[in-house]
């Protein structure tokens, strides 16, 4: 455990009580991942605050020490949004689960963030009300997590997402202050920070209280289970239903492979031999639903339905929904591993994209099961593979990347409800330009200038915000003299890399090179790792393999590099990425380096100072990678960033 974290432990114990601070390495492992288990990282420290004031105190302590922190709800997220930081504090909100207030007349409830989604509906049920967003994990997922991810659910087609149902938030800002966003009524004055905060994946602060809208329970609910020969026919029915002006509560589709899996797992008795099934749920006032039901029935028949089952009592409906809701888990029975994607396409492109997915699947020999929210074009292709077969994991990753490309080509999105997290940040540049991402990060900078709040999520390249607090330092003389340049490199450079963020080698090859040259000391490369944090830019204590040079070289290094090498002062200071030094807040890696996915930095920006190699010097290559193995680091060529002299 790093010294800074160690120093925080007693303070955290004072704030939360000794029993709510976890330092035991084995217990810490419990929190190493969220619902996306392919990314793992053991946090340095876990705290479980019990009140908003405790959260504020914990965040203040972290901010004061310059330690990153990540909030976690129930850990059901599917994009690694709550993936801990290896040298940071994980703030677990599950002790804060009080339903503070329910006002049935105003149809509002005030809840703490650890309350589960379903608990809100249960508490509201006696008043004939319910909480509309219903992600499939609603039994365990927390409302705080829903706010962070702007969760949807099967019924968001009609009712909207979390952002449409939250009217006020009490948050702890990344600097540790407690404040409200929104006046609790859903009618905002000033900027809609409430709307911007919802879905920010824990990067703008930590929610400590949530005001949610409750809706009257619909008079009647009808569910239709419609079987088709193919997903294309089912897709046509979906378009026809929406075109007819009917807005069902939910329209879900499953293809043959998903049906097979669900049937095996929960015996849901879907029509045998169907190429696709469509679940259409209609709810509302009895008088309206009757009329809609007959319209939907005739449209489904016209699109070539082979069988239609109707269910209106709760038990029957639950039986039919069981097949759909268990689909993800059920697929686990027919494949040892799978990747869930979350791409969205305009509804009119559903057929074309499904055909493309089938094509990709056939080309790669990788099976893809489709379970999705057909009504809003939100696909959940489950890319099945066997991680014991060499090469399959990579092939599956490739297929799932190609599926997202197909979605984007048709004007869609890379994620409809799971969030970007660490998992999809590398796809963000495919959807947004550098300016778009930069603009989003202006919001981040306003909330979290120090970049300590859930760093490394959403954005492939962090932006350095405003003035970095701390003592101003002059640029390194070598940089000023044009003899050195700053470079930035990331980790997880290859798609198939299975290592958790931060598991990369610090500086591939450098150590070995220096060892080889030990005693000689005449190599052209001098490297030392540096970190940027709220105190500015400094060399890592003892870090970097430059040490291996030993003796006099080390002392010389220290004189040159042991102190901060260059001011990262993105205010009106020198830009790090070329011309336009008057511009505000340039981030390293901006212009030329934007769009690379190998800098999804799990632990903030890492910069190195590299002395320019003499002409003809060998660049680091494959041989410099270090040991292979599970956490093998891919090719991490330095991205040179010239510092304007």
């Amino acid at each position, binding site marked *: 455990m790093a010294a800074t974290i160690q120093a925080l432990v007693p303070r955290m114990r004072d704030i939360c009580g000794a029993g709510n601070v976890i330092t035991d390495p084995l217990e810490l492992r419990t929190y190493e991942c969220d619902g996306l288990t392919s990314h793992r990282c053991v946090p340095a420290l876990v705290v479980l605050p019990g009140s908003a004031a405790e959260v504020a105190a914990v965040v203040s302590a972290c901010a004061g020490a310059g330690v990153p922190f990540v909030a976690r709800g129930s850990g059901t997220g599917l994009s690694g949004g709550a993936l801990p930081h290896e040298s940071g504090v994980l703030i677990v909100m599950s002790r804060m689960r009080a339903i503070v207030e329910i006002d049935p007349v105003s149809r509002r409830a005030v809840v703490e963030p650890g309350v589960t989604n379903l608990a809100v509906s249960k508490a509201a049920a006696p008043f004939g009300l319910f909480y509309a967003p219903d992600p499939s994990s609603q039994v365990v997922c927390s409302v705080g997590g829903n706010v962070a991810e702007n969760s949807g659910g099967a019924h968001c087609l009609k009712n909207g997402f979390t952002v449409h149902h939250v009217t006020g938030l009490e948050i702890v800002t990344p600097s540790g202050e407690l*404040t409200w966003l929104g*006046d609790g009524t859903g*009618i905002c004055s000033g900027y809609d*920070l409430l709307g*911007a905060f919802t879905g920010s994946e824990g990067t703008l602060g930590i929610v400590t209280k949530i005001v949610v809208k409750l809706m009257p329970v619909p008079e009647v609910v009808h569910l239709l289970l419609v079987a088709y020969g193919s997903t294309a026919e089912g897709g046509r029915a979906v378009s026809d239903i929406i075109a007819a002006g009917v807005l069902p509560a939910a329209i879900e589709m499953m293809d043959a492979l998903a049906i097979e899996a669900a049937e095996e797992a929960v015996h849901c008795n879907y029509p045998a031999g169907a190429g696709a099934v469509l679940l259409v749920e209609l709810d509302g006032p009895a008088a309206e639903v009757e009329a809609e039901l007959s319209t939907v029935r005739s449209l489904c028949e016209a699109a070539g339905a082979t069988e239609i089952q109707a269910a209106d009592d709760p038990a029957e409906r639950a039986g039919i929904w069981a097949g759909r809701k268990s689909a993800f888990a059920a697929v686990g029975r027919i494949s040892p591993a799978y990747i869930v994607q979350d791409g969205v396409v*305009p509804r009119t492109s559903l057929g074309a994209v499904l055909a493309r997915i089938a094509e990709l699947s056939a080309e790669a020999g990788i099976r893809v099961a489709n379970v999705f*929210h057909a009504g809003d074009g939100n696909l959940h292709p489950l890319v099945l593979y066997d991680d014991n077969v060499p090469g399959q994991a990579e092939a599956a990753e490739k297929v799932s990347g190609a599926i997202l490309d197909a979605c984007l080509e048709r004007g869609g999105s890379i994620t*409809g409800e799971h969030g970007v997290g660490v998992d999809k940040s590398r796809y963000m540049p495919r959807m947004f330009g550098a300016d*778009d991402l930069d603009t989003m990060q202006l919001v981040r900078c306003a909330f979290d200038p120090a970049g300590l709040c859930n760093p490394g999520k959403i954005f492939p390249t962090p932006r350095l*915000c405003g003035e970095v607090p701390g003592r101003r330092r002059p640029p390194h003389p070598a940089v000023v003299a044009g003899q050195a340049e700053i470079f930035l490199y990331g980790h997880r450079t290859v798609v198939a890399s299975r290592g958790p963020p931060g598991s990369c080698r610090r500086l591939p090859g450098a150590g070995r090179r220096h060892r080889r040259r030990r005693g000689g000391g005449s190599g052209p490369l001098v490297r030392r790792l540096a970190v940027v944090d709220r105190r500015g830019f400094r060399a890592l204590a003892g870090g970097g393999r430059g040490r291996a040079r030993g003796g006099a070289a080390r002392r010389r290094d220290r004189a040159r590099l042991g102190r901060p090498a260059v001011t990262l002062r993105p205010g009106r200071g020198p830009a790090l990425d070329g011309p336009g030094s008057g511009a505000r807040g340039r981030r390293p890696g901006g212009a030329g380096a934007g769009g690379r996915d190998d800098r999804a930095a799990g632990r903030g920006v890492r910069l190195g100072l590299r002395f320019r190699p003499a002409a003809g010097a060998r660049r680091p290559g494959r041989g410099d990678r270090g040991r292979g193995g599970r956490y093998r680091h891919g090719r991490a060529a330095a991205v040179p960033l010239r510092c304007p002299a």
Partner: protein
Amino acid sequence: MVATGTAGPRRFRYGAPRDLLIGITVVRADGVVAQAGGKVVKNVAGYDLGKLFAGSRGTLGVITEAAFRLHPLPAAVAWVTAEFGPAERAGAVTAVAAAAGSPLVPSAVELDWPGGSQRPLRVGVLLEGTGPGVAERAKQMSELLAAPGGATSVAETAPARWGALPPSVTVVRVSFWVSALGPVLDAVVAAGADTGVRPAVSGPAGAGALYACLDPGTSDEDAVRFVSALRERVAGTALGAGGPRGGVVVLTAPPAVLTATSDRTVPGLALMRAVRDQFDPDHRMFPGRFAGGG
């Protein structure tokens, strides 16, 4: 509309522009063109800048393109109205809450009170859907509104003044939890009595908002005094155990009134300032329109 975040009666069911905006292209104060969101309804990639720009009054950038989610036009519509005498204010309040909380899925629940203790109050409910469905729901809604003593009627055309505010220069919006509608109406009357103005009150009461419109002849001093009196009186109803539950905002007014009444207690004002400083550090975009003044 996006920049001001304006919404009419249908706000009750469909929300404000921020709720239907799915993609946006803006020009920042430094000339950079950026977009966020997209063309699909369901999308959580990146921050939702559309939310931030909706209601920003042009202080963060210029909106050059916006994509919206559309809803199907209803096959049939009906307006159910209920008139309540001046002495039956409590009945109107009950009717609003009953309509807004009913599973009949109204599209709008409006309260219209031309002002003054001698004028009747009108609760108006808009129902949209299929022909037979709307007819049946209108019947049920009539019963619901008649229960607290309203004289109800059903029509296929909008009642007078539907979705329109009375002519006025100063419009003050009060937002509240619906359970506080009664005290809010009392507060408006009392604040009017304190300062000698007689505001007309109208708006989507079922969604938790009302507009108090001051007569065009009201002097600036009276308007300022009315707003501060209203703020003071509403503050009592707008703070619950669970945090803020409403506020008073001056939407339009003569510049002098706007300056004198800018609300410096808006939740999250410090963060709003920080956001503005990031987007427009020199405050060149529409100075004076920022919430909280400046």
